[in-house]
């Protein structure tokens, strides 16, 4: 075994260089096997893993404390795209389900209906249909039908109560749910509230508050968000 200038083995240095990726689960299979073999032969090296987890936890905390893009940033981007390319043109291909449902939402949001007494309720029902189609396939936990959402999952993990903004499109809701890795587990409840699970484990209060703070800025998609107890 070769020694480097500090008396440490070159192999140890090489393995230690790989450990951060071993901890984050992003090593290639070959390197992962190599690290596991080394750790099996050198149990004392496992102490490194704990240090790396500490570093990772705090790096995540620092980044999670940062904000998100301000409300209206997407609108600004789309306006710039429109400025560059001109207004959106109808696409030749047949629209997919999401686009179709988004189109329904757009219809429900015409000015005539907007001011009708029942408009809000209609939007909520329309969104329920859309959202029903967006629920991730989680086996028994997924909705059976899009139009009749029901309670579908046990109250485990970290959950939020979310009401989507009236003008939110299916694409925006889909994007947001994917962004927060959220799964709608029940709803709509009174007030158009949906229960969205953002983690299968109990996140720390500060982590959840960070997510909620970020979501509160997304006023174009979300009109209400709170932690679900």
């Amino acid at each position: 075994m070769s020694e480097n200038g500090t008396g440490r083995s070159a192999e140890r240095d090489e393995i230690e260089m790989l450990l951060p990726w071993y901890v984050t689960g992003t090593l290639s299979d070959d390197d992962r096997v190599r690290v596991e073999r080394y750790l099996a032969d050198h149990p004392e090296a496992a102490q490194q893993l704990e240090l790396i987890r500490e570093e990772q936890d705090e790096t995540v905390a620092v980044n999670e404390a940062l904000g998100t893009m301000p409300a209206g940033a997407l609108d600004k981007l789309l306006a710039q795209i429109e400025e560059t390319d001109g207004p959106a043109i109808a696409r030749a291909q047949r629209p997919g389900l999401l686009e179709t449902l988004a189109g329904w939402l757009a219809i429900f949001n015409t000015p005539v209906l907007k001011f009708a007494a029942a408009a809000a309720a209609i939007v909520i029902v329309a969104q329920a249909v859309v959202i029903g189609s967006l629920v991730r396939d989680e086996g028994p936990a997924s909705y059976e039908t899009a139009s009749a959402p029901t309670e579908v999952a046990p109250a485990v993990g970290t959950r939020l109560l979310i009401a989507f903004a009236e003008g939110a499109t299916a694409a925006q809701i889909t994007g947001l749910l994917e962004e927060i890795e959220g799964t709608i587990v029940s709803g709509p409840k009174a007030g158009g509230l949906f229960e969205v699970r953002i983690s299968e484990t109990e996140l720390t209060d500060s982590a959840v508050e960070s997510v909620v703070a970020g979501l509160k800025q997304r006023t174009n998609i979300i009109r209400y968000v709170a932690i679900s107890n």
Partner: protein
Amino acid sequence: MASANGNSDVELIARVASKDRVAIEVLYGRYQVRLFRFLVRLVRNEAVAEELTNETFLEIWRTAGRFESRSSPSTWMFAIARNKAVSLLRKRSEAELDDDAAMLIEDEADTPEVAAQKGDKAALIRACLARLSADHREVVDLVYYHDKSIKEVSDIVGIPENTVKTRMFHARKKLSELMAEAGVDRGWP
């Protein structure tokens, strides 16, 4: 791999290439937080990072047709964002960025010494992370927060894979040194 609803990253990029605005919205929803935070950490200024995030998505919109699957869409988008930040930082001195009316990012309230005196190890690590060089901090963020592999970091930062490994190694050593200077011996290296 194709998804059931055409919403995998690769499919979205292809749809953006054909000027599908719904696809750019979904992509935006999926990546804006990550790209924004990556940029905030690079330029240390939220208002500037907002502008750069916007410019990044505009470039994605314009150049999606040139995306080749040599890297993942995520890596490609991070590389675009990074190039935007590097170009800006070359043009503008740090002082100019700090003078922007926007909120300046405060990395950490406590110095390493104060955090160490309080016995708050987590705060100490955060304070020391904030004192890493920009190059070190970037790799640490990409690995620990953005879950990027060695190859992905190499593609995003534009350095060889071996350099990625040694840079991360030295960043971690520097972190331990900073903690030792504050009086906390981690027992490594």
